[in-house]
């Protein structure tokens, strides 16, 4: 009988000591956090998943409080949390809904392959073993690493050999962007309008670009000169559009000799429906006839 009391007493005393000890140490080693950090921590979901790149919600709250990072990194809370954090910080952020865009138009017939590849059918393996299969070193391989990475079934490699995004399903999670070894996928805000250069080739030699791809940018800078809003400039050998200036005049779309540009609202997000400058739809098999 007495063993029960001893057991009870020992467990109780131990729990009591540990409880008191923890409480004491919590106070003693308390790192004071300012009120803002406290508020930010309360607004975070508390999943401690680490998706923001910090060890946990506490660490992230601290970093946001010190304004070392942006308040929109919590992917669990999404835009709601980002807005709440921005309110606490007293800043406004545009919580943008993003989608993925393929920065390459190198279909099978436009960008020829340099050899026949009979290895493991993933983009990562092709890049590692053969250094890519396209003559263009920057282009999409089309083995569908993005398709396999997509949790929403929103990106599919078409018969033309490059992936096509289903913009009704794409959530902008960015998994395909990470999976792509060529880095030809990029996240773009869904409500953005204006023209976008769909090429990643940085080769400065015109003849080399022309040889490797019929829709590659060969740095003539006609787009830079012809833009009525002066919204385009060259950066690392590729045109970059300033979307605060671009008014969708589509001059670059019409002028570009290799049809690198497309309008986001007309050519990219509504792929295959309405093509600017009379270009044939990329999606269907008819794309196999390229007269350029």
């Amino acid at each position, binding site marked *: 009988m007495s*063993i029960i009391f*001893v*057991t009870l007493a*020992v*467990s109780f005393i*131990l*729990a009591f000591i*540990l409880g008191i*000890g*923890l409480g004491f*140490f*919590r106070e*003693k*080693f*308390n*790192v004071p956090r300012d009120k803002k950090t406290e508020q930010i921590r309360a607004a975070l979901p508390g999943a*401690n998943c*680490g998706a923001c790149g910090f*060890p*946990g919600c506490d*660490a992230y709250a601290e970093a946001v409080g010190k304004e070392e990072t942006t308040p929109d990194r919590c992917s669990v809370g999404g835009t709601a949390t980002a807005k709440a954090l921005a309110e606490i910080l007293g800043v406004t952020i545009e919580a943008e809904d993003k989608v993925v865009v393929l920065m390459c138009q190198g279909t099978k017939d436009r960008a020829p392959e340099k050899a026949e590849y009979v290895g*493991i*059918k*993933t983009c*990562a*393996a092709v890049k*590692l073993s053969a250094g890519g299969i396209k003559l263009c070193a920057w282009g999409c391989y089309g083995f569908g690493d993005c398709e396999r990475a997509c949790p929403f079934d929103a990106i599919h490699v078409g018969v033309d050999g490059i992936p096509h995004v289903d913009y009704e399903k794409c959530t902008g999670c960015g998994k395909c962007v990470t999976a792509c070894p060529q880095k030809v996928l990029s996240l773009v805000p869904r409500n953005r309008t204006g023209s976008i250069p769909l090429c990643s080739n940085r080769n400065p030699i015109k003849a080399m670009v022309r040889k490797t791809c019929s829709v590659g940018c060969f740095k003539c800078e006609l787009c830079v000169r012809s833009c009525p809003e002066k919204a385009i400039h060259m950066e690392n050998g590729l045109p970059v559009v300033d979307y605060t200036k671009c008014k969708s005049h589509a001059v670059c779309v019409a002028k570009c000799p290799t049809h690198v540009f497309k309008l986001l609202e007309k050519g990219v997000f509504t792929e295959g429906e309405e093509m600017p400058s009379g270009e044939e739809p990329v999606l269907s098999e008819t794309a196999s006839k390229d007269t350029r």
Partner: protein
Amino acid sequence: MPVALKIFISALLINNIILMRFIALCPYIGMSTDVKQSIGMGFAVTFVMVMASTVTWALYHFVLLPLGLEFLQILVFILIIASLVQLVEYYLKKSAPALYLSMGIYLPLITTNCAILAVTFDNITAAYTFFQSIVYSIGVALGFTLAMVLLAGLRNRIRTAAIPPFLRGNPILFVLSSLVAVSFMGFAGLIK
């Protein structure tokens, strides 16, 4: 060979806690996504394991044994480990923030790590002295780290492999681990 060294080698290689005894498989599979991360987890485990075996050994020999309460060890040890991890977290946060940040999320995860509990029980069942139990816990923790780093390296190597669809994900990891475990069997005759 001194007894302590024997204990150390056998805990590290011959009776490797993951590959030979199949304890703590969850952090082994979960945290071995890259080498750097697994080393971080390994050091956090080493730290807590040594602390836990120190405290539980003392508690068992000075409190539970004299009172005849050996059957309480599961309850008491879990309680001790959980509070210990929490306490260490508070301490590190205040006095060594850099270390705290580098350990990050691993520290709280160790609270429920079964390897730690297993080591504290081993110390009791094998009737180790205080010094031996410390040596044993270091050996086990380093063995844990070794297995984690090995798997993390292997995971890197199979990234581009053509794995049959029914083996993708965790199944292939267990196949890999079993192959590593088989190779660890070669250590069986290391100490007589």
